[in-house]
């Protein structure tokens, strides 16, 4: 689990959404994929598709590559192509503002921050816990890497798991 690469992803997504790009790509890794799926689940990004160095073909109707495209399909992951795979993300905009606001790392490569459920309860109520600032604005999210995959902070509290705090969106 390389937090260096994750930090690069965060700043790349910040740059891409400031440039109002509709589609962007990040290096493929299990961590990135899980995080992107969590972001998609929260509605921050519109699509996550694993493809090659060039953008995968667009879905006929959606206009962005889709993982469940029946016509184009998705290339399978093999040992020969795994190194060249990238994740292609569809970015969302609403009223000409990016839906994915500012992504910032909480854990750093040199200082990983873990948090337990008690601390997380405080955080989602807007209070500070340890090194983690509270979620004080509407629509703010915090993503954690837990035993049960990458989850949003509120999901973690619901499932009573703590974990490594990855990044925050606001």
């Amino acid at each position: 689990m390389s937090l260096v690469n994750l930090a690069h992803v965060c700043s790349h997504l910040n740059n891409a959404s400031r440039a109002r790009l509709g589609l962007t790509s990040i290096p493929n890794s299990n961590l990135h994929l899980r995080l992107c799926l969590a972001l998609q689940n929260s509605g921050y990004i519109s699509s996550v598709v694993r493809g090659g160095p060039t953008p995968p073909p667009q879905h006929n109707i959606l206009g962005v590559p889709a993982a469940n495209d029946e016509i184009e399909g998705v290339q399978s992951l093999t040992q020969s192509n795994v190194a060249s795979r990238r994740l292609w993300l569809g970015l969302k905009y609403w009223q000409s503002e990016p839906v994915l606001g500012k992504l910032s790392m909480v854990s750093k490569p040199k200082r990983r921050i873990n948090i337990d459920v008690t601390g997380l309860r405080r955080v989602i109520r807007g209070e500070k816990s340890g090194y983690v600032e509270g979620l004080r604005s509407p629509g703010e999210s915090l993503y954690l890497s837990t035993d049960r995959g990458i989850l949003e902070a509120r999901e973690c509290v619901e499932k009573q798991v703590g974990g490594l705090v990855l990044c925050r969106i606001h």
Partner: protein
Amino acid sequence: MSLTRPARCLICSFSRGASAATRVPRRQFHPSPAQLANRKPKFPNVKAKDSMTLDELSQNMQPHHFQPYTEEQKAGLKEEYTPEQLAAIEAGEAAIDPKDMAEQFGIREDPFRLNYLDDLSTIEPNVDHHIRAPKSNSDYSATFKSDEDFLDDFARFFAELPEDGGASDWVRFVDNARVTLGKEESERNPHSVLVPDLFAPGETLSDDNKKIVTPFMLQKQSAANAENEEMTDALKRLLQSTGYSSAFVKTLSTKALVSHFVVNQTRLGKVRRMYCLSIAGNGDGLLGIGEAKSEESADAVLQSRYRAIRNMQPIPRYENRTIFGDVEGKVGATELKLMTRPPGFGLRCQHLIFEMCRAAGIQDLAARVGRSRNPMNTVKAAYEALMGQRNPEDIARARGKKLVDVRKVYYSGRELPKKSLTIRAPAAEVPATGEKQLTA
């Protein structure tokens, strides 16, 4: 948040009116029992063992359930119907075989059947479209009756009054008297239920638009006269460009927050001018800032005030008392952070931001001003921060998620009556705006 509320038909007057009380039972976040709107059950309690399912009903129908009328029932029918009608009823009964009745008894088996028992003979306002009078009922050329018409009506009433007529005839006449000339349906059963009432509340036909003049009004009038005298060109232009009335502008709270001299160095020497920055607000969500420069200080103050009034814009407020989440603003080297706070917290911030919040009608707020604390930039940055709040509804729409305000979970989703309750805010205030998957 309107997203959490189902849309209701605005036109349909028979749909239940929007009320603050929740109808859908929700998950409870508190141990006290939920208070339902009406505790008395509307329908008698039916035990499961006493009731029959639709399948049982349809299976158990036998020809012997459809017996011809007994003598007693016939005697009862005789009281209601004429002999001809009775003969028609009996002929109809005899024409239908009880076996057919049992087979065709109206509980449908097809896949498109209703999942509840209903013969669709009555109109349920909650389920069915309500019946609206046809458009042809409208009469656009209808006019009010004149005094003469009313006199004619009275004359006709007295002429047609039977000899033993009494108060009941009079009441019936008054109830049924029409006030318009034209199509009768247009008055009695109009096409749209949204047609405004003929009379405003308290207004009657005999009302002569009498105005009661009180000493207080006299006083106000004289004040208004005084105002007219001091109506300047600048004020006139302000009223014209904004569309506000002078009375409204009088009610606005304006304040000059920053003023100092600025100097322009020309080859003729230094030209000193007064700089002024003012704020204006109506104490209920509107706030504007304006700045002006002039040789005369009074002129600069006035100009900046008018510009502030011109620039007034609505500021998003949570529960009309604080802001949505924490917001940051930056102008030049001034960086500040405004923080949302629970009810009763007050305005714990420096005086410039305090004045702005007071003008805008924000009561609970904390602020930190970092780096430079230049007054002019502080005001501008605070204004930028207040305008930069993100609306939760927009966030919900952008992400396609349903956002629920956890604070509204208490008191069964009702807003707190203003200032009647002084409770500590639950810890889960704005920040803990929970997120749920949009299921509806």
